[in-house]
């Protein structure tokens, strides 16, 4: 049986098992996540060696049927999802349950996460615009479930806003797909160059990009995201921020590459929206008073940076900038997941997540704070992390294009991200008697392992950037 088929069906089957049989949810979830990681790695190795693969589902060739395009970019995203998912799953499966109330929360987590995983895998592989819309809907609903998991009123409010924004984005996307059909008569991904050639087609692509911008929380359509990502449970936030947002970004990247030079104007709009998100997110992260809110705003900013990079691709398939964008996506996923898990641990330990209250009596930072710091280094883009290599390539490509204003913007974004992340890291090193009464290090010592592991992966990826970059060479044309 083919890896791609298993990658899309195994998580969904596991989700069903976990939903129907809550007692076995954890074990099912862990096994499925592990299996998924194995499959993703095997597929990536095969594609890295043998080149991109295309598959027609049911034997019906596109445009009538739906195709799977398993190329380097898709494989990279699959591996990214698998790794981050593995880290978060370990965290969820290993966490001790403080009270019975959380048992239900945890059993509800697994089917939702597995559905998210299945939808993301299907989305990365899909080569059909309408099919992308359907996967987005699964993803959006499952992500909303993850947001609402903690059951607090703010979480529910955020989940509602998230779902309605997500639905609005999906409908924009669907409208774009409808117009694509009306223009070109078909909706497989190969139609994109043709769409880029006509006015109606460009309007269709514009609608699709607008839908994606809502889902990726680009300025000025970002309003729903910080609340959703900051009010969910930390593990859920890690998945939402690290992975779910990437889905829209991935499709935008795919369309930008497929669209070639004809969608220059659209890409420019994307870049401007990305720059807006970067500055807006950074500004709010600088002013945030809660740790989770800061990290959530930082997601807006970082995704903005990635969108900016995608917007500035030259449309050539051998370009540097889109590779940089892919690498930034990967490094952001690892670092942001680590960061949210670390924040979860810190919050659990202190009993709150106010930044002003992060001072410690014991100055020695724990593993969670350390993981946070490493993740921060990667997000800022300092060596030797993957974020650094990504930013280096991005700047390289921008300078090659002579896009100096954008270079300045990227540097400004870097400075701002350093500023808001240093706020937290320096707090962790500061002394002071402000430990909340009753707050103590929880007995669960292994709880930092997942955060630390993901952060270390972001660090190590910097030294092994050649692996993802060579994998990207096998991207379908």
């Amino acid at each position: 049986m083919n890896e791609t088929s298993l990658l899309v069906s195994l998580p969904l089957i596991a989700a069903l098992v976990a939903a129907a049989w809550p007692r076995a949810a954890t074990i099912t979830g862990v096994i499925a996540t592990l299996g998924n990681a194995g499959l993703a790695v095997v597929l990536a190795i095969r594609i890295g060696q043998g080149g991109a693969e295309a598959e027609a589902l049911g034997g019906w060739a596109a445009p009538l049927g739906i195709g799977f395009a398993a190329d380097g970019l898709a494989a990279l995203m699959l591996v990214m999802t698998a790794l981050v998912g593995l880290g978060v799953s370990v965290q969820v499966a290993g966490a001790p349950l403080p009270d019975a109330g959380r048992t239900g929360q945890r059993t509800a987590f697994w089917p939702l996460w597995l559905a998210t995983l299945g939808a993301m895998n299907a989305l990365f592989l899909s080569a059909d615009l309408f099919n992308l819309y359907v996967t987005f809907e699964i993803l959006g609903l499952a992500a909303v479930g993850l947001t609402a998991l903690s059951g607090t009123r703010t979480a529910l409010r955020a989940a509602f806003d998230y779902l309605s924004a997500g639905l609005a984005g999906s409908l924009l996307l669907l409208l774009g797909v409808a117009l694509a059909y009306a223009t070109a008569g078909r909706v497989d991904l190969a139609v994109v160059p043709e769409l880029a050639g006509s006015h109606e087609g460009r309007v269709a692509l514009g609608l699709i990009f607008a839908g994606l911008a809502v889902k990726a929380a680009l300025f000025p359509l970002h309003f729903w995201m910080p609340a959703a990502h900051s009010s969910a449970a930390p593990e859920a936030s890690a998945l939402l921020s690290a992975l779910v947002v990437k889905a829209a970004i991935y499709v935008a990247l795919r369309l930008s590459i497929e669209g070639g030079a004809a969608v220059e104007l659209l890409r420019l709009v994307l870049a401007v929206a990305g720059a807006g998100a970067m500055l807006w997110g950074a500004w709010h992260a600088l002013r945030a008073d809660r740790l989770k809110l800061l990290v959530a705003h930082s997601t807006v900013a970082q995704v903005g940076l990635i969108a900016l990079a995608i917007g500035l691709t030259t449309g050539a398939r051998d370009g540097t900038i889109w590779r940089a964008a892919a690498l930034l996506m990967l490094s952001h996923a690892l670092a942001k997941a680590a960061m949210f898990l670390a924040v979860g641990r810190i919050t659990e330990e202190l009993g709150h997540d106010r930044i002003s209250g992060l001072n410690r009596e014991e100055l020695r930072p724990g593993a969670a704070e350390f993981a946070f710091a490493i993740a921060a280094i990667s997000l800022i883009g300092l060596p030797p992390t993957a974020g650094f290599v990504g930013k280096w390539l991005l700047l390289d490509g921008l300078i090659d294009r002579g896009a100096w204003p954008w270079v300045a913007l990227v540097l400004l974004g870097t400075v701002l991200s350093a500023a808001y992340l240093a706020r937290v890291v320096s707090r962790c090193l500061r002394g002071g008697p402000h430990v909340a009464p009753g707050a103590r290090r929880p007995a669960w010592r292994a709880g930092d392992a997942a955060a630390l592991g993901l952060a270390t992966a972001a660090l190590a990826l910097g030294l092994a950037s050649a692996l993802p970059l060579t994998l990207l060479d096998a991207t379908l044309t």
Partner: protein
Amino acid sequence: MTSDLVYHVAGAGLLAIALWRLATCRDTLRRITALNVLAIGIAMVLLASGHDPATGVTNPVPQAFVLTGIVVLVAVTAALLALAERLEGSSDE
């Protein structure tokens, strides 16, 4: 003037009404209704595009799209309404 054009215009009109309501109204139920109207508008323009006035046949593929869209929409609507009701309930507590 053909009937396709009528439905194109009607679909676009539905889109416009829904967008206008989405932009101006904060009430949860109303927003959900507006999203549903938006979806109907999209379905209408899609079907009108798939309709071939010469043969009077509508292309089955857009029909399938619209069918899928209807089912997806009812699922999302149910989730949205469940969330809205939960929110309303939790404010009472």
